[in-house]
C-alpha cells in the first residue's frame, strides 16, 4: 500500500519534460518497428548492429557541418539524418562489392565493412574533438533526459522530437511507396529478381532506412538499445499474427506501449521499489533501458500466450491430446471386454486401463466423466456399459490396432513381442482413411496375426 502511494506520488510530479520524453521515445519506437519488421523476416537483425557502427563517420561529419550553422536551426537535423543515410549507402555498396569477390562470405563482408567504417568514424571523432560537441557516451547509451531540453531557438519544441518525427514520417512514406518491392524481395528474392525488382536495390533502401532510423534514435535510446527497439517489437508481433500488415502495425503498437510504460515505470516504480528493500536515494532510472526491458517483457508474454507458438497453448494442446488418448483407451478396453463377454466393476476397469496403458488414475476418471457426458457410455449398477456411439469408437480403435499389428508383421517383418506396444501408440493416430488404405494394402484381412478378429469399420 505504501509502495502504491509512493508510485502515485512519483507520478504526480509529471511535467512537460516527461510528456516530451514519452512522445519522443514513442515516435522513435514506432519508427524502428517499420524497418525492424523487414529485418526480422529477412533474418538480418545483425545488419542493424552493423549499420549502427557504420553510421559513425557520417554522423561525425554531419556534426562538423552543422557546427557551421547557427545553433537551434532545423537544418542541423536534416544534415544529421543525411549523414546517416550516406553512411548506410556507403556501407551497403562496399558490402555488395566485397561479396562479389566471392572469396569473402556475406557475414564476413558485413563484419569487415562495419568495423572499418566505425574505426574511420572514431578517428574523425578524436581528431575533431575540439571542434564538435559530440559525446560518445551519449551516442552509445542515449540520453533522453538531455535530448528533450535542447529546443529550437525561441520555442519549447525539442529538436529531438522533430528528429524522431522526421524519421517516422520517412519510414512510413517509404513503406507506402515501396511496400510491394520490400515485401516481394523479402519473401522470394529470386522471383523478385526475375520480374525486375533487384535485390541489391531493395537491400540498399532498407540499409538507408535502418541507418536513418538508428541515427534518429541515437539521442533517445542510444546506438546499442536501438537495436532492441528494431528487433524486439517485430519479433513479438511475429508470434502473434500471420498477416504481414498486421505485423507492422502490431510492432508499432508494441513499440508505442513500451515507450509509454517504460517511462512511467522508470520514473515511478524503480525508486520506491528499491526504497522498500532499503536502497534509498534513487528517484528514476534510464527511460531507454526501461523501454527495452518492457519490450522484452511483452516478448516473454507473447512466448507464453501466443496462440500458435505460445507455451500455454502448446501445453493445452498436449493435454487435449492426452485426454483424447485416455478416452480412446477406455473405449477400446470396454470394447475388448464386451468382445470377450466379460463385465468388470468400474474400479477394476480403472486399474485394468491404468495397467495396460500407463494412464494415471485421475485422467482415466476425467475421461470416463467426459465419455458419459458425450453419451458414449453409461453407468449402470457399478459398471460402465458402452452405448452404440461408444461401441463404434471402441471398434475403430481396436480395428486400427489389429490392422497395424498385421501391417507390422506382414510388411515390416517385426517380431511378435514388438507388435503390441507399437500398435498401442499408433492406434490413436490412424484415421479412417488410413484404416481403409491399410486394409486394402493388406488384402482386407479379417484376422490379426494372433488370430483375433479385426472388426469391421462400422
Amino acid at each position, binding site marked *: 500500500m505504501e509502495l502504491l502511494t509512493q508510485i502515485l506520488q512519483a507520478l504526480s510530479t509529471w511535467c512537460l519534460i516527461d510528456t516530451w520524453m514519452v512522445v519522443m521515445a514513442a515516435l522513435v519506437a514506432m519508427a524502428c518497428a517499420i524497418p525492424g519488421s523487414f529485418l526480422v523476416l529477412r533474418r538480418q537483425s545483425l545488419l542493424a548492429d552493423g549499420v549502427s557502427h557504420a553510421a559513425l563517420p557520417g554522423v561525425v561529419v554531419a556534426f562538423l557541418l552543422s557546427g557551421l550553422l547557427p545553433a537551434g536551426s532545423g537544418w542541423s537535423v536534416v544534415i544529421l539524418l543525411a549523414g546517416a543515410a550516406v553512411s548506410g549507402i556507403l556501407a551497403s555498396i562496399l558490402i555488395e562489392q566485397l561479396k562479389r569477390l566471392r572469396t569473402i562470405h556475406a557475414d564476413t563482408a558485413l563484419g569487415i565493412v562495419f568495423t572499418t567504417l566505425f574505426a574511420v568514424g572514431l578517428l574523425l571523432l578524436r581528431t575533431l574533438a575540439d571542434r564538435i560537441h559530440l559525446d560518445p557516451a551519449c551516442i552509445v547509451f542515449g540520453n533522453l533526459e538531455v535530448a528533450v531540453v535542447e529546443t529550437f531557438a525561441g520555442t519549447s519544441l525539442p529538436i529531438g522530437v522533430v528528429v524522431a518525427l522526421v524519421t517516422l514520417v520517412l519510414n512510413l512514406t517509404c513503406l507506402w511507396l515501396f511496400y510491394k518491392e520490400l515485401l516481394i524481395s523479402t519473401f522470394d528474392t529470386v522471383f523478385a529478381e*526475375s520480374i525486375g525488382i533487384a535485390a541489391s536495390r531493395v537491400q540498399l533502401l532498407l540499409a538507408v532506412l535502418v541507418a536513418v532510423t538508428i541515427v534518429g534514435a541515437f539521442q533517445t535510446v542510444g546506438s546499442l538499445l536501438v537495436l532492441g527497439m528494431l528487433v524486439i517489437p517485430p519479433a513479438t508481433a511475429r508470434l502473434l499474427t500471420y498477416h*504481414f500488415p498486421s505485423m507492422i502495425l502490431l510492432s508499432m503498437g508494441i513499440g508505442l506501449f513500451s515507450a509509454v510504460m517504460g517511462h512511467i515505470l522508470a520514473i515511478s516504480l524503480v525508486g520506491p521499489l528499491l526504497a522498500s528493500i532499503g536502497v534509498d536515494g534513487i528517484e528514476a532510472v534510464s527511460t531507454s533501458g526501461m523501454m527495452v526491458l518492457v519490450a522484452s517483457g511483452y516478448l516473454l508474454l507473447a512466448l507464453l500466450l501466443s496462440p500458435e507458438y505460445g507455451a500455454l497453448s502448446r501445453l493445452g494442446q498436449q493435454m487435449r491430446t492426452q485426454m483424447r488418448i485416455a478416452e480412446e483407451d477406455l473405449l477400446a478396453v470396454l470394447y475388448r471386454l464386451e468382445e470377450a463377454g466379460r463385465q468388470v466393476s468400474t474400479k477394476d476397469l480403472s486399474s485394468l486401463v491404468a495397467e495396460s496403458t500407463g494412464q494415471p488414475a485421475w485422467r482415466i476418471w476425467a475421461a470416463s466423466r467426459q465419455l458419459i457426458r458425450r453419451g458414449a457410455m453409461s453407468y449402470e449398477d457399478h459398471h460402465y456399459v458402452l452405448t452404440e456411439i461408444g461401441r463404434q469408437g471402441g471398434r475403430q480403435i481396436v480395428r486400427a490396432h489389429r490392422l497395424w499389428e498385421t501391417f507390422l508383421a506382414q510388411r515390416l517383418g517385426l517380431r511378435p513381442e514388438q507388435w503390441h506396444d507399437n500398435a498401442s501408440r499408433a492406434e490413436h493416430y490412424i484415421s479412417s482413411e488410413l484404416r481403409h488404405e491399410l486394409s486394402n494394402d493388406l488384402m482386407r484381412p479379417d484376422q490379426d496375426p494372433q488370430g483375433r478378429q479385426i472388426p469391421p469399420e462400422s
Partner: protein
Amino acid sequence: MNAENSPPDSPLVIRDMTVAYGRKPVLWNVDYVSPSQKLIAIVGPNGAGKSTLLKAALGLIPRQNGEALFFGQPYQAVRQRVAYVPQRSSVDWDFPISALEVAAMGCYGRVGWFRSVNRDAKNTALAALEQVGLGDVARRQIGQLSGGQQQRVFLARALAQDADLYLMDEPFAAVDATTEQSIVSMLQALRDRGKTTIVVHHDLQTVSEYFDEVLLLNLRLIAAGTVSEVLTPQNLKATYGGQLSILDAVGQRMSARQSVTS
C-alpha cells in the same frame, strides 16, 4: 534444330552460354533453341546444372560467356512474356503472408515501382488459385498448406503472370502423386493454349509420359529434341555415366515404348 536456322520468334534461344561458380564451370558452351508451344523437360543427374541453366538464361546469375534471347529479344525487354517458378525450397514458408498475396505477386511485374497492388491484381490472383484448385484456401497463411499445395501456390503465381513462356524449377519435387498428376494436366492445358513450358525434372521414368521434348544436360548439352529422338541408350549413357541401374530401367521402358509405336 540448331542455333543457325532458328526462327526469330523462338521462346528461348541460348547461344554458346558458359556459366561458372567462382572458377568452377558448371555449364559449358550450351547452344539451344526451344520449339514453340511444347512441354519441354530439362533432365540430368544431380549437379548437372539444370537449375543453373534456367537462372543463367534469365540473368539471375552471371553468365561467363554467351547470350540468351527470349522471343528474339534480351530478357529485360520481354520480362512480361516470361514467368519463372523457383524451387519451392528457396523461400521461407513460415512467412506471414497468405496464398492469395503470394499469387498476387504474379501481377507485380505489370504494376511497376511505386504503385500499389490493385483490385484487378487480387482478382487475377484469386482466379489463378481457383485454376489450381486452391480457391478455398486462398486466405490461409502459406505455412498451413501442404507441400503439394505450396507448389500449386507457386504455379498460381506463374499463371497470374499470364506469360507465353514458363520456366519451372523442379515443380514436382516432394509432391504427392495426386498433386503431380494435377500439375501435369495444368502444364498440358497451358501447352494447348499455345504456351511453352520448360521444366527442370528429376524423374527420368516419367519424361516420356509427361513431356513432348527433352533436353539432356550434364555440364554440357548432350542432346535436345523430341522425347523419342533424344532418349536413346547412347544419350542416356552420356548423361548419366555409370548409373547403369537407371539406364537399364529406362532402356526397358524405351524398348517397350518402341515396340508399341512401331
